[in-house]
């Protein structure tokens, strides 16, 4: 279990009730997203998560600047002081 700093960008700010940053205790990404759903309610769940509780197709989650899809996805462990970014999938190209 670690105290994790979470930052929201773009439409994720609206989903997080206009907050741009928060701190959450969680041991992995799945737990973190559960906690955020509890804190921010239905609007967060509906906008940011899919039916399985993971980030929906157009949302990316980064732990210490690495996409969780390149780590252990929802099972990516979190430690004290980690930084998590939640942002729209950035198209580029």
């Amino acid at each position: 279990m670690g105290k994790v700093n979470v930052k929201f960008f773009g439409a994720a700010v609206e989903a997080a009730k206009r907050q741009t940053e928060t701190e959450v205790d969680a041991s992995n990404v799945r737990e973190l997203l559960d906690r955020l759903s509890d804190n921010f309610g239905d609007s967060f769940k509906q906008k940011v998560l899919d039916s399985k509780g993971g980030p929906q197709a157009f949302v990316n989650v980064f732990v210490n600047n690495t996409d969780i899809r390149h780590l252990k996805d929802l099972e990516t462990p979190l430690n004290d002081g980690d930084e998590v970014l939640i942002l729209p999938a950035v198209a580029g190209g």
Partner: protein
Amino acid sequence: MGTVQALICRRCDAESPPMKTISCPKCFAPVDVSYDFDSIQLSHDSFHTRPRTLWRYRELLPVQDSRSIVDLNAGFTPLHRCRNLEKLFGLKEVYVKNDGLNPTNSFKDRPASVAISKAIEFHLKTVGAVSTGNLAAAVSAHAAKANLPCYVFIPQGIEASKIAQITAYGPHILSVRGTYDDANRLAYLASESYGWAIANITMRPYYVEGSKTLAFEVCEQLGWQPPNHMIVAVGSGALMRAIWKGLNEFERIGLIGNGSTSIHGAQASGCAPVATAFKTGNESIKPVARPDTIAKSIAIGDPGDGTYAIEVAKTTGGRIDGIKDIDIQEAIKLLASKEGIFAEPAGAITIAQMKKLVEEGQILPDESVVCCVTGNGLKSVEAVQPSSGQWQIVDPTLKALNTVITNW
């Protein structure tokens, strides 16, 4: 000028007013510019006296005020009839749309011109791009013309010739330690933090509108007859979808008949997340962490429009394949030696894909094909190695020359 109605979400259909944005405020999905098609009155004759640039299609571009337009004469590039390739592949009609002849030598001048013009219309003071090289050059050049400060984010390891070209236009260059996707994320965070107009991120709905003019021109240059097949390289997948959107809009306003063009994509095997998902039928695209290919222009591990590129291929009867670097290099030489067109790897990959599609019966002998060559070969000279026996060192005498050419 353009008759923009709104931004429409591709997923939830929510409408939002035209603004600087990356995605739908309700569901995060990409948004598209929609037009008031009923008010657009265009016929083939409308174009006779218009400028030979992408701005000839101004009613279908999202800039409302002509004073905002930054124009380096991008667009209306040549459509070459390739009779040597026709003979080689046994096809009736083969064309190359040579977008390497744009002002900064790639198709990216199209979206750059539109994105920077729209940024000016929005009164944004700083512009930028995240880029594997071509877009950085295009945005920097248009920013220079508009006297706007410009920040470009590029991954490490792109070609020296591209860096030299970008440098000359005078932007602030941020060489990001990491991949294109790392640069992409940083550029997004910068756009959120500083309010910059990043062409392919926060100006994206407008940016992609520039790319669709490639499809408009192909139709016009073929006498308003769209081809049976169009082949494009796939990096993010945005160009493939933009071409589909362009063909649909021309149909909708009656400039061409109803759709019969199959749109095919090609990715380098060393970075082929879209081709892999197309082949396996997966709904989601698994990003590639470390792209490894000579086709650096399309080395995008996490393609934002990948699912839409797949949708376009499926809807139009097209395909998306991975092409090996060695086949891309062969295609560069084939296109140059048979048709006199020197393409960068991401441009020549379309020729390799055409070969594959012909061999596998996807393109039939009596059909027409347009390969979109999106970048000039001088952008990545490292990709071309002389063939064995192609070079000879000769003493400066006629006798020595005679010996060499007799034995060649």
